[in-house]
């Protein structure tokens, strides 16, 4: 899941001239560092909802919850249907 989300973020938010900057990892701050502005966050939310067939309520789609891929993975996991139940 991490890789898929990282990939999307690179495609959706990074420009070609960011390539020389520090590589993006699961713990790179996204929003607080300005890589993703909170205004453009919506496409990431829609991507997650579509990719994992979940609905993330707006009140949970906070800049904090979206700040790193690690926390995004946690957020998605909370909304995935429980397997084996």
């Amino acid at each position: 899941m991490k890789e898929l989300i990282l990939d999307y973020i690179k495609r959706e938010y990074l420009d070609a001239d960011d390539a020389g900057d520090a590589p993006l990892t699961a713990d790179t701050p996204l929003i607080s560092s300005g890589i993703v502005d909170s205004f453009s966050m919506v496409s990431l939310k829609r991507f997650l909802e579509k990719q994992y067939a979940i609905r993330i309520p707006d009140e949970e789609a906070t800049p904090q919850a979206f700040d790193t891929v690690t926390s995004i993975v946690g957020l998605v996991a909370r909304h995935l249907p429980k397997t084996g139940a």
Partner: protein
Amino acid sequence: MAYPAAVRDAWRAELAGIREKGIFKDERFIHSPQAARITVEYPAGAPLKEVVNLCANNYLGLSSHPAVVAAAHRALDERGYGMSSVRFICGTQDVHRALEEKLTAFLGTEDTILFASCLDANAGVFEAILGPEDVMISDRLVHASIVDGIRLCKAMHDTYKHCDMAHLEEKLREHQDKRVRVVITDGVFSMDGDMAPLDEIVALAEQYRALVFLDDSHATGFIGRTGRGVHERFGVMGKIDILTTTLGKALGGASGGCVSGRKEIVDLCRQRARPYLFSNAVPPPIAASAIAVLDILSATTARRDALEANAAFWRAGLKDAGFVIKDGDSPIVPVMLFNAKLAQEVARDLYDEGVYVVGFFFPVVAAGQARIRTQLSADHDIPMLERALEAFKKVGAKHGILGLDKKGIIEKYGL
């Protein structure tokens, strides 16, 4: 009244934090009319100093132009000072309608509605025409007032990478299921001075059945062969569905803005746009002077031609001196310093050398993208700009940044 000490202390701490970061914005008092050369008191209480102004939006030098001032005087005598009413109650004079018609003709659109500012125009237009079945697709660097307008609107929103047409196309494809798609862009981007590729945007909008929204605040009056704006420059006049612009920059610089474009969109704004319905009418002297400005600009291109020549001279001069500037073709020329404190210090040193500029940094621009934004005016002349260049070279040398590229400056000063 309850202003609890804890709340006061919290806000004081926030202010202190802003100062500590070196990004506190304080104002400088100008003791003269807006012009290429102004008299400034800075810091407060300091002796007055005459400096070259390189940070006004006074692109055409019309803010204090005698014909513009005279038109305001005349209207003040003949139509009074203020309207004390919103437009639809008893706030519409003949001058308002005349100005709206002049703007429509100048911009090459179907109709125009005035607002108290372009911020108001941008804040009101989307909500007035779009609903949940629609989508707004905006460039990621659009002006803050557009961001506000988008936030106030119930339509879905999405963004594309700055001026990235492949990414825009991807988004247009993704949103084919919506009733209305609106592509939203600035004409000239105010912080970078670059231009949206409007011909390509219009072509994509036609291909994917989308409307085009253009904020031409930093272009109206001087971009394009006759100064109509970025749509003229790219040969797509008449193809912009929603065009917003300001009277607060090149067009006399007082205040006021408008939504110009398709008739039905303008009509809906008159019925529904909240900043139009619930805020006072533009004062008569301002409306009358804006008409005078449009008359000047329709009669001659001398001012935009002078501005273009000044901007070309200035860009080349800064580049030759070894500064990192953002490439472009507008009178906005950002000198990149990347580090916020460095931008502040360079601005302060330039003031000592008689050049008035301001440092911009997060959150006005992205973190690590601090800069000094220089803006040219038709009222500058080459000797004035030559002296300003000497000042830039002196200050650049003092900070050891001449000839350094982005990487070099960041290595030296950090982000």
